[in-house]
């Protein structure tokens, strides 16, 4: 499809359906959420329209800011670990023969499609006392008795990496398949080892891709809800857990709305940064 026609009135009429749906069921709810963040909560009941800054003040004071910083920190950490593993993995993957290439992609996609419910549950079992990895070690005679490795910070981190890794592969994959094989071949013809080629040629070329992938996976892990709830103690909970907890069990929707809006701005800021990096890369290339 190279040529585009001038848009007719009919085209705009048809376009009204998808755009209208997205506007009504995505933009309008966001707008209502903005309004709700200023509403007044009625203890024991629900909430009523008002204009007060109490929810925002509460969010920006003390403990919730701390939780926000913790969420950002653990998401950055998990994102960094995942991208550091996913980049070389994806690089090798794109250079494999067709069959292992496809098989590994199916595995990665299946892991990506899995619900956080399933991932969280599987890791609680694997790190748990009754049927977990420690039982294998006991069985092998390495350990004396089984132990539980969750709930813990380490367990949350592992779980986050598990959901983040396939996502990283997915964001890196399109770009890495476009990496001209002649570039690496040239480096090796000139005598560089594969290892050196990887570090001095591939990684520098891909720096913007790595950065963009890292930021995207950061937003993705920031949205994780069940992993911290399943595998961590309350002190490991992230912003997403607090938002849904406030909205459902605490029935404090206005406060949840204020937190969710903060999360929206944070994510939008990061996504804008990604788009800026991509636009700049395109200009150089």
């Amino acid at each position, binding site marked *: 499809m*190279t040529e585009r026609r001038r848009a007719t009135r009919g085209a705009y009429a048809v376009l009204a359906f998808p755009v209208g749906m997205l506007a009504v069921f995505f933009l309008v*709810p966001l707008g209502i959420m903005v309004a709700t963040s200023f509403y007044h909560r009625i203890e024991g009941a629900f909430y009523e329209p008002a204009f007060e800054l109490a929810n925002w003040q509460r969010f920006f004071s003390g403990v919730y800011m701390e939780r926000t910083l913790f969420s950002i920190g653990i998401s950055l950490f998990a994102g960094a670990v995942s991208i550091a593993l996913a980049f070389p993995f994806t690089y090798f993957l794109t250079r494999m023969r067709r069959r292992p290439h496809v098989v590994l992609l199916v595995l990665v996609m299946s892991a990506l499609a899995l*619900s956080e419910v399933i*991932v969280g*549950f599987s890791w609680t079992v694997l790190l748990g006392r009754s049927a977990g990895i420690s039982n294998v070690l006991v069985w092998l005679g390495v350990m004396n008795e089984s132990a539980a490795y969750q709930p813990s910070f380490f367990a949350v981190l592992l779980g986050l990496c598990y959901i983040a890794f396939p996502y990283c592969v997915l964001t890196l994959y399109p770009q890495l*398949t476009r990496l001209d094989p002649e570039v690496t071949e040239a480096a090796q013809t000139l005598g560089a080892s594969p290892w050196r080629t990887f570090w001095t040629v591939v990684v520098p070329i891909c720096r913007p891709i790595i950065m963009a992938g890292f930021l995207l996976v950061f937003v993705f892990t920031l949205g994780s809800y069940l992993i911290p709830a399943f595998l961590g103690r309350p002190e490991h909970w992230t912003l997403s857990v607090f938002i849904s907890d406030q909205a459902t069990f605490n029935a404090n929707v206005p406060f949840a709305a204020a937190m*969710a809006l903060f999360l929206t701005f944070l994510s939008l800021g990061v996504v804008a940064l990604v788009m800026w990096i991509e636009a700049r890369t395109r200009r150089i290339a």
Partner: protein
Amino acid sequence: MRALRWSLTTLVVVFLIAPLFVVAVVSFNENRYMDFPPEGFSLHWYAQLWEDISWRESWTTSLVVAAASAALAVLIATPLAYLLRAYHVRLAPVLYSLGILPFMLPPVISALGALVFWNSMHHSGRIENIVMSHAIFFSTLPLVTVSLAMEAMDPSLPEAAQTLGASQRTTFRTITLPLLVPSMITGYAAAFVLSLNEYIIAFMVSRFSVVTLPIKVVNDLRYGFTPTIAAVAVVFIAIATTVFTLFALYGNLLKFLGADPAILERER
């Protein structure tokens, strides 16, 4: 480098498979309590998924939600992808971003948005609310697949039809649309699988009155593990793997994931 490649790939495969493997083993355990190494072999926990009425109901709910929301997602995404590619539309990049945005942002935002939206409509806790929210959230997937198909389409095909006298409408119906069908199916399948697995939006929109399968699993986990939950997990894993294997066999998984067309020409 070769050793590194081999060990990294192995590490990744083990990391991705290990928790799933343990769950699969537990699901065949004869005993009610989870043991490892397992004792005995039993399909009892799988049978319970069908025999127990509450599990069966959550299955049906989840399948209905996934089927309906994926269909609606394709209905929203296809005209958007087609029109933005075939016509000069004002604000096209903005409209495309609008289609991508729900999926890019953390799902809890869509979840809370939908919650306050349906509250203000005084229409909360209905199954159609979940269908609607999933359709919007996952419409990004068919939007991407159909847009890619539009990019890849040979422009000479619709041109040839028009040279032979077909009207624009006929060209769309007999040439363009059939060429888009595979990408619509892939978009549908991806949205279906992800909807089936989605928890947080469904949970917050349902307000405790509609129970999809992931919600049921989390509810049951509050009272401790049962091998039935492990059986559900195995079924989920099987569904995801089957869909993407079919994808790789009959669709073009590599192209869907955005591989460079040149790599597709390489040796098989």
